[in-house]
């Protein structure tokens, strides 16, 4: 048996629905159709009345999830694409994220954002908005990079008493496969050493983990041992694990698919240098997408985001400093 990242998301939702009667799913086309990406395929039939088609009203979709959450439900919201969450952003950052702080009443919502670039998807179906949500207090922002994490962290998300932005990467949906679903997992909020190495700490998350792993393979053939930290959660951000790795390697490269300004990579570097400046033997570097909208044509897109090749080059610069 083998299971894809997308199937893991479906299975996690099936399990959450099965185990907790307060869980329901709400989003455009999530019902009989099973969602634009089929992440809810079959669930409407399996859980009648609990997988509900929404009108094209992202603001009201999130708003209603808030109302249901404070009444004891555990809504899972599917945005059709992360890009469209900007239309519901106000409810997310100003109402859901502040609810507990204002009222002492928790607001447990899981907002699934199918995010990241895929070939030919263009500027409005490719965005990675994790840094935008992480900037606002009151949200947990998860960025699973593996099939196992997609499954276990989605279950975590539903169990967490705070609003969770669950950034699932569309590029990984079909291509990433695992043997089976995990039985245990790291606690949510903890980063993971995805590959051990002593020469360079490469901090990354989501789809860029796989580009980074490929880069590390390439660099290994050249004698460099790259340690890769998969953040898993970008808010909270597990600075300790990153710092411990930098303490071992003395070098840091941060790689993210999102835009550079104020992104995860900037946040990681700011933390590492302010708390672990003396651990560093070389200037920490970051590699992100270019600071333009995400291009439609595959050739432009391939040059816009980091790839194994550009990561290899950036890593070599840090290694050779």
């Amino acid at each position, binding site marked *: 048996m083998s299971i894809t990242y997308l199937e893991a998301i479906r299975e996690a939702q099936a399990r959450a629905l099965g185990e907790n*009667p*307060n869980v*329901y799913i709400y989003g455009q086309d999530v019902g009989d159709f099973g969602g634009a990406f089929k992440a809810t395929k079959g669930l409407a039939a399996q859980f009648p*009345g*609990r997988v509900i088609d*929404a*009108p094209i*009203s*992202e*603001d*009201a*979709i*999130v*708003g*209603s*999830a*808030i*109302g*249901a*959450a*404070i*009444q*004891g*439900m555990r*809504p899972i919201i599917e945005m059709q694409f992360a890009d469209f969450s900007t239309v519901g952003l*106000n*409810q997310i950052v*100003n*109402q859901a*994220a*502040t609810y*507990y*702080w*204002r*009222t002492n*009443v*928790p*607001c447990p919502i899981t907002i699934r954002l199918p995010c990241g670039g895929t070939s030919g998807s263009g500027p409005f179906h490719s965005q990675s908005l994790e840094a935008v949500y992480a900037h606002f*207090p*009151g949200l*947990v922002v998860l960025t699973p990079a593996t099939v196992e994490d997609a499954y276990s962290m989605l279950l975590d998300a539903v169990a*967490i*008493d*705070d609003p969770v932005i669950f950034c699932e990467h569309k590029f990984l949906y079909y291509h990433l496969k695992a043997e089976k679903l995990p039985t245990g997992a790291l*606690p*949510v*909020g903890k980063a993971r050493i995805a590959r051990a190495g002593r020469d360079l700490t490469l901090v990354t998350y989501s789809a860029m983990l796989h580009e980074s792993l490929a880069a590390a393979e390439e660099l290994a053939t050249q004698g460099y041992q790259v340690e890769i930290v998969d953040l898993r959660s970008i808010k*909270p*951000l597990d*600075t300790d694990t990153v710092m411990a790795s930098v303490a071992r390697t003395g070098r840091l490269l941060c790689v993210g698919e999102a835009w550079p300004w104020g992104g995860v990579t900037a946040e990681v570097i700011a*933390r590492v240098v302010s708390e672990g400046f003396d651990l560093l033997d070389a200037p920490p570097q970051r590699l992100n997408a270019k600071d333009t909208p995400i291009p439609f044509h595959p050739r432009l897109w391939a040059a816009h985001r980091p790839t194994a090749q550009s990561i290899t080059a950036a890593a070599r610069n840090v290694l050779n400093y």
Partner: protein
Amino acid sequence: MQRLVEAVPPAAVTGGPNDPVLRPSALDPSQLRLAYRWVLLARLLDDKTAALYRSGLVPGGAFLSKGQEALSVSLAMQLQPGDIYAPLIRDTAGRLAFGETIQDALRSCIGSPLGPMRGRDGNVHRGRPKDGYLPMISHLGAIPSVVNGALIARRLQGKPMGIGATCIGDGGTSTGAFHEAMNQAAVERLPLVMVVADNQYAYSTHRSRQFACDSLLDRAVGYGVDGHAVDGTDLAACMQVMDRAARRAREGCGPQLIVANLLRLCGHGEHDDASYVDPALKESHVGRDCVKAAADWLIAHGMAAPGELSKMQTDVSAELEKAVDEILRDPAPDPNVEKWTALATAALRENAS
């Protein structure tokens, strides 16, 4: 499907004996006297809030409900335990009728740690969600969909749905969020009672710059919901129209849109002298004081004696003064004991600053 769209012209809402919609005889005098007590208390509480604001005890601003008391109270008086109430900026009267204490109201205005918002939020941004009493955020239009969600929760939980009641201004209807929520309620056929207080202005902006239909009631048919017009200056009319709307919502007739005409009888906030308000409007029917009109009406219809009402005023004032004395002894919030976290989940807190 047949829809009820009642466009009662304001002229008919003043309660003539031949008006089929509004018959004083259909009203319960004790309910009306109770309603009057709440609008009176609300008005005095507003005056007190303004006084505290002027003496520097209210941080930020003071936002009063003057002119909207009759409308506000009549919605809240329809609510029963288990219902959801999400008032907006000018609902002092409804909040009190729903069960908010004077202390909670005043504590929110001064930012007391003993109030429901514990100094974190203030003035009209208050509520107690556990009691079905939802706090507003400032962003206009952001609340109705939350009420929808609370109702959806009950449907999913198989609990009695009750009704969900909320309010918005003429200006707030221009927000996309309001539209999405109304439409969502209609699609889900939720027992949402949505009151639009058309008080002629949104801050300084006249309704003619806010929408182009004759009355916002014209929106009801487009959402496929019941619509009700009411004279917001007339307590008895408001009580009867709300009664019918709430009953229809409870009976499964789906969302109810009530549009009331009235005038804001104060500034947007106490910093605003409202000099932009057309004097002719103040002189017109829409500009009459709903609290005073209610007193006159109760007396004229033999539902209360003048002495009864002045005694009520004395009682209510004493109650208010007592509460003020109490809350003015509250401590200020202490930043050193404040937890400084926005997360409910202790394990996920980090202290980046």
